[in-house]
Protein backbone atom coordinates (compact mmCIF):
# COMPACT_ATOMS: atom_id res chain seq x y z
CA UNK A 1 0.00 0.00 0.00
CA UNK A 2 2.91 2.34 0.74
CA UNK A 3 4.12 1.85 -2.83
CA UNK A 4 0.70 2.86 -4.16
CA UNK A 5 0.74 6.03 -2.04
CA UNK A 6 4.28 6.85 -3.24
CA UNK A 7 3.30 6.26 -6.89
CA UNK A 8 0.24 8.49 -6.51
CA UNK A 9 2.32 11.30 -5.11
CA UNK A 10 4.87 10.92 -7.88
CA UNK A 11 2.17 10.96 -10.55
CA UNK A 12 0.66 14.07 -8.93
CA UNK A 13 3.95 15.95 -9.04
CA UNK A 14 4.66 14.83 -12.61
CA UNK A 15 1.27 16.23 -13.65
CA UNK A 16 1.89 19.46 -11.74
CA UNK A 17 5.25 19.89 -13.45
CA UNK A 18 3.62 19.30 -16.83
CA UNK A 19 0.94 21.87 -16.04
CA UNK A 20 3.60 24.43 -15.11
CA UNK A 21 5.50 23.80 -18.34
CA UNK A 22 2.28 24.03 -20.39
CA UNK A 23 1.29 27.25 -18.63
CA UNK A 24 4.65 28.77 -19.41
CA UNK A 25 4.49 27.68 -23.05
CA UNK A 26 0.91 28.84 -23.62
CA UNK A 27 1.53 32.17 -21.88
CA UNK A 28 4.45 32.68 -24.27
CA UNK A 29 2.46 32.06 -27.46
CA UNK A 30 -1.08 33.21 -26.66
CA UNK A 31 -0.72 36.86 -27.70
CA UNK A 32 1.01 36.13 -31.01
CA UNK A 33 -1.42 33.29 -31.71
CA UNK A 34 -4.34 35.64 -31.08
CA UNK A 35 -2.95 38.29 -33.44
CA UNK A 36 -2.25 35.68 -36.15
CA UNK A 37 -5.81 34.42 -35.87
CA UNK A 38 -7.11 38.00 -35.89
CA UNK A 39 -5.18 38.86 -39.07
CA UNK A 40 -6.83 35.90 -40.73
CA UNK A 41 -10.41 35.98 -39.47
CA UNK A 42 -10.73 39.72 -38.71
CA UNK A 43 -13.08 39.09 -35.81
CA UNK A 44 -11.90 39.49 -32.22
CA UNK A 45 -14.28 37.02 -30.59
CA UNK A 46 -13.72 34.44 -33.28
CA UNK A 47 -9.94 34.82 -32.95
CA UNK A 48 -10.15 34.34 -29.17
CA UNK A 49 -12.33 31.25 -29.60
CA UNK A 50 -9.92 29.76 -32.12
CA UNK A 51 -6.95 30.28 -29.81
CA UNK A 52 -8.80 28.78 -26.85
CA UNK A 53 -9.83 25.75 -28.88
CA UNK A 54 -6.25 25.25 -30.07
CA UNK A 55 -4.99 25.43 -26.48
CA UNK A 56 -7.53 22.88 -25.29
CA UNK A 57 -6.74 20.48 -28.13
CA UNK A 58 -3.03 20.74 -27.54
CA UNK A 59 -3.41 20.05 -23.82
CA UNK A 60 -5.91 17.21 -24.25
CA UNK A 61 -4.19 15.38 -27.09
CA UNK A 62 -0.53 16.32 -27.12
CA UNK A 63 0.53 17.51 -23.67
CA UNK A 64 2.49 14.29 -23.14
CA UNK A 65 4.60 14.86 -26.24
CA UNK A 66 8.12 16.30 -25.78
CA UNK A 67 8.06 20.03 -25.12
CA UNK A 68 9.99 20.90 -28.27
CA UNK A 69 7.03 19.57 -30.31
CA UNK A 70 4.43 21.77 -28.62
CA UNK A 71 5.09 24.89 -30.72
CA UNK A 72 4.68 23.35 -34.21
CA UNK A 73 1.78 21.20 -32.92
CA UNK A 74 -0.02 24.18 -31.42
CA UNK A 75 0.29 26.27 -34.56
CA UNK A 76 -0.73 23.31 -36.70
CA UNK A 77 -3.92 22.95 -34.67
CA UNK A 78 -4.54 26.70 -34.81
CA UNK A 79 -3.96 26.88 -38.57
CA UNK A 80 -6.37 24.04 -39.18
CA UNK A 81 -8.97 25.77 -37.01
CA UNK A 82 -8.51 28.93 -39.08
CA UNK A 83 -8.80 26.98 -42.34
CA UNK A 84 -12.00 25.35 -41.05
CA UNK A 85 -13.35 28.79 -40.21
CA UNK A 86 -12.74 29.99 -43.76
CA UNK A 87 -14.29 26.83 -45.20
CA UNK A 88 -17.43 27.38 -43.11
CA UNK A 89 -17.50 30.96 -44.38
CA UNK A 90 -17.44 29.75 -47.98
CA UNK A 91 -20.32 27.36 -47.24
CA UNK A 92 -22.33 30.16 -45.65
CA UNK A 93 -21.72 32.39 -48.68
CA UNK A 94 -22.74 29.57 -51.01
CA UNK A 95 -25.94 28.90 -49.08
CA UNK A 96 -26.73 32.61 -48.95
CA UNK A 97 -26.25 32.74 -52.70
CA UNK A 98 -28.61 29.81 -53.19
CA UNK A 99 -31.34 31.61 -51.31
CA UNK A 100 -30.84 34.91 -53.09
CA UNK A 101 -28.59 36.48 -50.48
CA UNK A 102 -26.91 38.73 -53.04
CA UNK A 103 -23.28 39.57 -53.62
CA UNK A 104 -22.75 41.92 -50.72
CA UNK A 105 -19.35 41.60 -49.14
CA UNK A 106 -19.24 40.86 -45.45
CA UNK A 107 -18.31 44.04 -43.62
CA UNK A 108 -15.21 43.22 -41.68
CA UNK A 109 -14.25 45.22 -38.64
CA UNK A 110 -10.67 45.00 -37.63
CA UNK A 111 -10.26 45.49 -33.89
CA UNK A 112 -8.11 48.53 -33.28
CA UNK A 113 -6.60 48.20 -29.85
CA UNK A 114 -4.16 51.04 -30.08
CA UNK A 115 -4.45 54.37 -28.27
CA UNK A 116 -4.34 57.63 -30.28
CA UNK A 117 -1.27 59.00 -28.45
CA UNK A 118 1.17 61.69 -29.57
CA UNK A 119 2.29 62.25 -33.18
CA UNK A 120 5.17 59.74 -33.09
CA UNK A 121 2.82 57.09 -31.81
CA UNK A 122 0.32 58.03 -34.53
CA UNK A 123 3.04 57.57 -37.15
CA UNK A 124 3.91 54.20 -35.71
CA UNK A 125 0.24 53.28 -35.56
CA UNK A 126 -0.12 54.23 -39.22
CA UNK A 127 2.79 51.95 -40.16
CA UNK A 128 1.22 49.11 -38.18
CA UNK A 129 -2.18 49.84 -39.67
CA UNK A 130 -0.65 49.69 -43.17
CA UNK A 131 1.12 46.43 -42.31
CA UNK A 132 -2.08 44.93 -40.93
CA UNK A 133 -3.97 45.89 -44.07
CA UNK A 134 -1.20 44.45 -46.25
CA UNK A 135 -1.14 41.16 -44.29
CA UNK A 136 -4.87 40.79 -44.74
CA UNK A 137 -4.56 41.04 -48.51
CA UNK A 138 -2.35 37.94 -48.56
CA UNK A 139 -3.80 34.54 -49.49
CA UNK A 140 -4.20 32.39 -46.36
CA UNK A 141 -1.22 30.09 -46.99
CA UNK A 142 1.14 32.95 -47.76
CA UNK A 143 0.01 34.80 -44.65
CA UNK A 144 0.47 31.70 -42.49
CA UNK A 145 3.91 30.89 -43.89
CA UNK A 146 5.13 34.46 -43.58
CA UNK A 147 3.96 34.95 -39.98
CA UNK A 148 5.20 31.56 -38.81
CA UNK A 149 8.62 32.07 -40.37
CA UNK A 150 9.16 35.76 -39.82
CA UNK A 151 7.33 36.46 -36.58
CA UNK A 152 7.08 33.17 -34.72
CA UNK A 153 10.57 32.22 -35.86
CA UNK A 154 9.80 28.65 -36.85
CA UNK A 155 12.33 26.96 -39.08
CA UNK A 156 11.39 25.97 -42.63
CA UNK A 157 11.02 22.37 -41.45
CA UNK A 158 8.84 23.30 -38.45
CA UNK A 159 6.71 25.57 -40.63
CA UNK A 160 6.25 22.74 -43.13
CA UNK A 161 5.12 20.42 -40.32
CA UNK A 162 2.80 23.11 -39.00
CA UNK A 163 1.23 23.81 -42.37
CA UNK A 164 1.21 20.20 -43.53
CA UNK A 165 3.09 20.98 -46.72
CA UNK A 166 6.58 20.54 -48.17
CA UNK A 167 9.56 22.70 -47.25
CA UNK A 168 9.67 23.89 -50.84
CA UNK A 169 6.09 25.13 -50.55
CA UNK A 170 6.95 26.99 -47.36
CA UNK A 171 9.80 28.80 -49.09
CA UNK A 172 7.58 29.64 -52.06
CA UNK A 173 4.72 30.93 -49.91
CA UNK A 174 7.09 32.99 -47.75
CA UNK A 175 8.91 34.49 -50.69
CA UNK A 176 5.68 35.42 -52.50
CA UNK A 177 4.24 36.88 -49.31
CA UNK A 178 7.27 39.10 -48.83
CA UNK A 179 7.11 40.27 -52.41
CA UNK A 180 3.43 41.17 -52.16
CA UNK A 181 3.85 42.90 -48.82
CA UNK A 182 6.76 44.98 -50.06
CA UNK A 183 4.81 45.96 -53.17
CA UNK A 184 1.76 46.88 -51.08
CA UNK A 185 3.66 48.83 -48.44
CA UNK A 186 5.99 50.61 -50.84
CA UNK A 187 9.56 51.79 -50.40
CA UNK A 188 8.81 54.49 -47.84
CA UNK A 189 7.02 52.31 -45.32
CA UNK A 190 8.66 52.51 -41.90
Amino acid at each position, binding site marked *: MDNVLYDNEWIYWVNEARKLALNSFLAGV*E*KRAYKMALFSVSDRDEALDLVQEAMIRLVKKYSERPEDQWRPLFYRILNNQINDFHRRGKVRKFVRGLFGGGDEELQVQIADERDAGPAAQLGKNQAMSDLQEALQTLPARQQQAFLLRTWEGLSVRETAQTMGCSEGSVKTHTSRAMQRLQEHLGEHWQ
Partner: protein
Amino acid sequence: MKNDQWQKKVQQHLDDDLEQLDQETLQRLQQARFQALDAVKQSAWRTDWSVGVAFASVAVIAVAVWLTVPDPQLNTPSFDDMALMVDSQTLEFYEDVDFYYWLAMDEVDDVTG
Protein backbone atom coordinates in the same frame (compact mmCIF):
# COMPACT_ATOMS: atom_id res chain seq x y z
CA MET B 1 20.82 42.54 -46.48
CA LYS B 2 17.78 44.60 -47.44
CA ASN B 3 15.29 41.76 -46.97
CA ASP B 4 16.63 40.96 -43.50
CA GLN B 5 16.30 44.57 -42.37
CA TRP B 6 12.79 44.78 -43.76
CA GLN B 7 11.83 41.55 -41.97
CA LYS B 8 13.26 42.89 -38.72
CA LYS B 9 11.15 46.03 -39.15
CA VAL B 10 8.04 43.91 -39.64
CA GLN B 11 8.89 41.84 -36.55
CA GLN B 12 9.40 45.00 -34.51
CA HIS B 13 6.06 46.47 -35.53
CA LEU B 14 4.25 43.23 -34.82
CA ASP B 15 5.95 42.85 -31.41
CA ASP B 16 5.18 46.46 -30.50
CA ASP B 17 1.57 45.90 -31.50
CA LEU B 18 1.33 43.06 -28.98
CA GLU B 19 2.14 45.52 -26.21
CA GLN B 20 -0.97 47.49 -27.16
CA LEU B 21 -3.41 44.65 -26.55
CA ASP B 22 -6.24 45.82 -24.32
CA GLN B 23 -6.81 44.46 -20.85
CA GLU B 24 -10.01 42.65 -21.73
CA THR B 25 -8.31 40.69 -24.49
CA LEU B 26 -5.41 39.80 -22.19
CA GLN B 27 -7.83 38.60 -19.52
CA ARG B 28 -9.75 36.47 -21.99
CA LEU B 29 -6.52 34.91 -23.22
CA GLN B 30 -5.53 34.16 -19.64
CA GLN B 31 -8.96 32.62 -18.96
CA ALA B 32 -8.65 30.49 -22.09
CA ARG B 33 -5.24 29.26 -20.94
CA PHE B 34 -6.49 28.33 -17.45
CA GLN B 35 -9.47 26.47 -18.92
CA ALA B 36 -7.14 24.55 -21.22
CA LEU B 37 -4.86 23.64 -18.31
CA ASP B 38 -7.83 22.20 -16.42
CA ALA B 39 -7.86 19.50 -19.08
CA VAL B 40 -4.48 18.13 -17.98
CA LYS B 41 -5.29 14.56 -17.10
CA GLN B 42 -5.09 13.65 -13.50
CA SER B 43 -3.95 10.06 -13.72
CA ALA B 44 -3.33 9.44 -10.00
CA TRP B 45 -4.89 6.20 -8.79
CA ARG B 46 -7.28 6.18 -5.91
CA THR B 47 -5.78 4.76 -2.73
CA ASP B 48 -8.97 3.52 -1.20
CA TRP B 49 -10.52 0.06 -1.28
CA SER B 50 -11.68 0.41 -4.89
CA VAL B 51 -8.13 -0.41 -6.03
CA GLY B 52 -8.39 -3.78 -4.34
CA VAL B 53 -11.76 -4.44 -5.92
CA ALA B 54 -10.38 -3.50 -9.33
CA PHE B 55 -7.45 -5.89 -8.96
CA ALA B 56 -9.74 -8.68 -7.81
CA SER B 57 -12.04 -8.13 -10.80
CA VAL B 58 -9.13 -8.24 -13.23
CA ALA B 59 -7.85 -11.45 -11.61
CA VAL B 60 -11.27 -13.11 -11.94
CA ILE B 61 -11.54 -12.12 -15.59
CA ALA B 62 -7.98 -13.31 -16.30
CA VAL B 63 -8.73 -16.72 -14.78
CA ALA B 64 -11.97 -16.99 -16.73
CA VAL B 65 -10.16 -16.26 -19.98
CA TRP B 66 -7.38 -18.73 -19.15
CA LEU B 67 -9.88 -21.50 -18.43
CA THR B 68 -11.73 -21.13 -21.72
CA VAL B 69 -10.52 -23.05 -24.73
CA PRO B 70 -8.31 -20.68 -26.67
CA ASP B 71 -8.97 -20.05 -30.32
CA PRO B 72 -5.81 -21.09 -32.17
CA GLN B 73 -6.22 -18.18 -34.53
CA LEU B 74 -6.09 -15.71 -31.66
CA ASN B 75 -2.74 -17.06 -30.45
CA THR B 76 -1.03 -16.23 -33.67
CA PRO B 77 -0.84 -12.53 -34.39
CA SER B 78 -1.43 -11.75 -38.02
CA PHE B 79 1.41 -10.43 -40.11
CA ASP B 80 -0.23 -6.98 -40.10
CA ASP B 81 -0.50 -6.93 -36.30
CA MET B 82 3.14 -7.91 -35.92
CA ALA B 83 4.24 -5.18 -38.28
CA LEU B 84 2.15 -2.71 -36.30
CA MET B 85 3.67 -3.81 -33.00
CA VAL B 86 7.20 -3.59 -34.29
CA ASP B 87 6.90 -0.23 -36.00
CA SER B 88 6.31 2.38 -33.29
CA GLN B 89 6.03 5.15 -35.88
CA THR B 90 3.11 3.34 -37.53
CA LEU B 91 1.46 2.91 -34.14
CA GLU B 92 1.83 6.63 -33.52
CA PHE B 93 0.20 7.29 -36.87
CA TYR B 94 -2.79 5.12 -36.02
CA GLU B 95 -3.18 6.90 -32.71
CA ASP B 96 -3.31 10.25 -34.55
CA VAL B 97 -5.19 9.03 -37.62
CA ASP B 98 -8.08 11.48 -37.16
CA PHE B 99 -5.61 14.37 -36.97
CA TYR B 100 -3.84 13.28 -40.14
CA TYR B 101 -7.20 12.78 -41.88
CA TRP B 102 -8.09 16.35 -40.95
CA LEU B 103 -4.81 17.58 -42.36
CA ALA B 104 -5.26 15.51 -45.53
CA MET B 105 -8.67 17.08 -46.11
CA ASP B 106 -7.02 20.46 -45.69
CA GLU B 107 -4.50 19.64 -48.42
CA VAL B 108 -7.26 18.42 -50.74
CA ASP B 109 -9.04 21.74 -50.30
CA ASP B 110 -5.86 23.63 -51.08
CA VAL B 111 -5.42 21.71 -54.33
CA THR B 112 -9.04 22.11 -55.40
CA GLY B 113 -9.05 25.78 -54.30
